[in-house]
């Protein structure tokens, strides 16, 4: 399934994703208000402008989602007021009492669908919202029971149905499910599981919403290995079959990005890189990956599609 690339130049190396030299691009001090933490960001290129939906934890300790925008994807202006904060009334309210977070954006037929986490004493649930211009975000529905996280919609239907990836807490695996109306979901199936002994040994979850490539659906995912000092969060990549995403056609056996810089090693949650969004730069042919580091800042890294394909290809061959 993967495009065959010459393998002789493939080297499994550290830090496949290249960090932007001026990382982090958004720090706590850059915010126009006081906050406890910056977690991560969904990302999209809308009408030539970069938009980030950033999860920010306020001083009280709960998260809201803030909008930031930029012309060059490097220098962002962050708005003072959240674009999505916990609902105070209506059916969402009792499920968002402890925050809303982790927006993942999918463009589908001209509408941006945002899957975010509703957090409350009842646990983590998936919620769906939509917007056409990011000026305001409209809630659609709560679309899961607890506890599940790390979800995004595919940008088009698969076999005539909407599809999503998610990571139920039980088992720490990435699952797929389907819907005809975006409100009711079914036909759950496992897509990817942690790999014993690997960097993604203990649990995995979707990072960036699926991107369609000639090799299938490209997904960035995070993998966790638990150590005596706590979890290590790293970033990996996989390709899923375009028609049947349950079939994993390639998966990197190395992480593409692992905490090593000071801002990734040290923060409120140490040793963490965690992405919720990326933008495809058609001029450079690269994926621009926005990732949170140590729950304390937002960073940028880039990687080419070619490299991602080659790594999956080489990884798969090594496994064979």
């Amino acid at each position: 399934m993967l495009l065959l690339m010459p393998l002789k130049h493939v080297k499994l190396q550290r830090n496949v994703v290249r960090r932007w030299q001026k990382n982090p691009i958004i720090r706590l001090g850059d915010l126009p208000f006081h906050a406890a933490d910056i977690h991560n960001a969904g990302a999209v290129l809308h009408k030539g402008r970069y938009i980030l939906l950033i999860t920010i934890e306020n001083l009280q300790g709960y998260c809201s989602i803030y909008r930031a925008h930029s012309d060059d994807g490097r220098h962002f202006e962050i708005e003072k007021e959240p674009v999505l904060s916990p609902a105070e009334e209506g059916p969402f309210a009792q499920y968002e009492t402890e925050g809303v977070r982790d927006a993942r954006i999918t463009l589908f037929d001209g509408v941006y669908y945002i899957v975010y986490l509703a957090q409350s004493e009842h646990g983590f649930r998936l919620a769906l919202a939509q917007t056409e211009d990011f000026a305001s975000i409209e809630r659609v529905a709560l679309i899961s029971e607890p506890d599940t996280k790390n979800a995004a919609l595919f940008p088009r239907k698969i076999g005539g149905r909407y599809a999503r990836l998610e990571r139920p807490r039980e088992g720490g695996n990435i699952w797929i499910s389907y819907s005809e109306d975006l409100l009711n979901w079914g036909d759950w199936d496992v897509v990817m599981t942690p790999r014993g002994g690997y960097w993604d040994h203990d649990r995995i979850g979707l990072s960036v919403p699926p991107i369609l490539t000639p090799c299938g659906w490209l997904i960035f995912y995070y993998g966790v290995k638990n150590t005596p000092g706590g979890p290590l969060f790293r970033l990996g990549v996989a390709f899923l079959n375009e028609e049947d995403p349950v079939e994993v056609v390639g998966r990197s056996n190395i992480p593409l990005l692992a905490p090593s810089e000071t801002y990734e090693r040290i923060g409120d949650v140490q040793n963490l890189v965690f992405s919720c969004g990326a933008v495809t730069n058609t001029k450079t042919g690269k994926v621009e990956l926005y990732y949170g580091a140590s729950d304390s800042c937002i960073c940028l890294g880039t990687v080419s599609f070619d490299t991602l394909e080659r790594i999956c290809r080489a990884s798969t061959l090594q496994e064979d």
Partner: protein
Amino acid sequence: MVSLLEQDLLERYEGNPLITAADIPFTCNTVFNGGATKLNGQYTILLRVEGQHGYSVFALARSSDGYDFEIERLPVMTPATEGPMEKYEVAGIEDPRITVVDGTTYIVYTAFSGYGPCMALATTEDFSSFERHGLISEPGNKDGLLFPRKVGGRYVRFDRPIGNDIGRIWVTFSDDLRYWGDSRVVISPRPGYWDSYRVGASCVPIETESGWLAIYHGVKMTSGGPIYRAGVVLLDLQDPSVVIARSSVPILAPRMEYERVGDVCNVVFPSAAIVEDDGQVRVYYGAADTAICVATTTMEKLLALVHKDGEPAPAPGSRRPSYPVD
């Protein structure tokens, strides 16, 4: 002196336990948590039988009086060995609950595997062959059952996901039994009560003029392990996510030796309630994960208890402490 047994609203059948491993015609470890139904005067229990290898299958027990059961020689439903459900049932199939909706017999059961417990749906016409309809929940979910009729044009189910480490009863809706949504929390544990640690749906809710009467199980954690008891709750007929009343006391608690002692001690776990024409209610329950028992009461008594003793539902969004779960 008041007998301890009289504290329980449910009256145990003197011939309990009805069914134990000794009654199962094939070699097994235990039998417990059977879904039951009464069709055309015949009582049918789909028994959860745990084999000696450790995973569970379903066997069939039939009776004309609801007390003396004949058990079929071989299991009637075993974990799938092919098809899409195979990988989700490798650790067994558990805790079936039977509901007849519009003439079709549905079984909601737990499909168990390394991926975690999931709710699964099957149908049957004769309890000898079963058609699987796949997973109907994410993993980490148990104690699912269907309501006996559609509400507001939609099928309704109860289930018990774990959110924020706490097992609560949720209600979820579907137009077609395949795609599910509009999930809401219904019943949560109550700090300090007999159901302080975890709750789960037990019996298919019974429709009454006052609302849906549902028997559920509640768990209290002690230093010696959990205690599983049964309680009763009344839900709004039009909106089963609304609790009208909830009994403050259990209707059944482990007291007899067959409830106190077994593979899991101190468990009574109702899994079906059958309403007789005269208003008698027969509650079939698993005891100590080792036997099937029955206890009876009347609709009148259940409704009187839930009304008299009924506690209003906890306020939505009210904070309750987390309890350690492992």
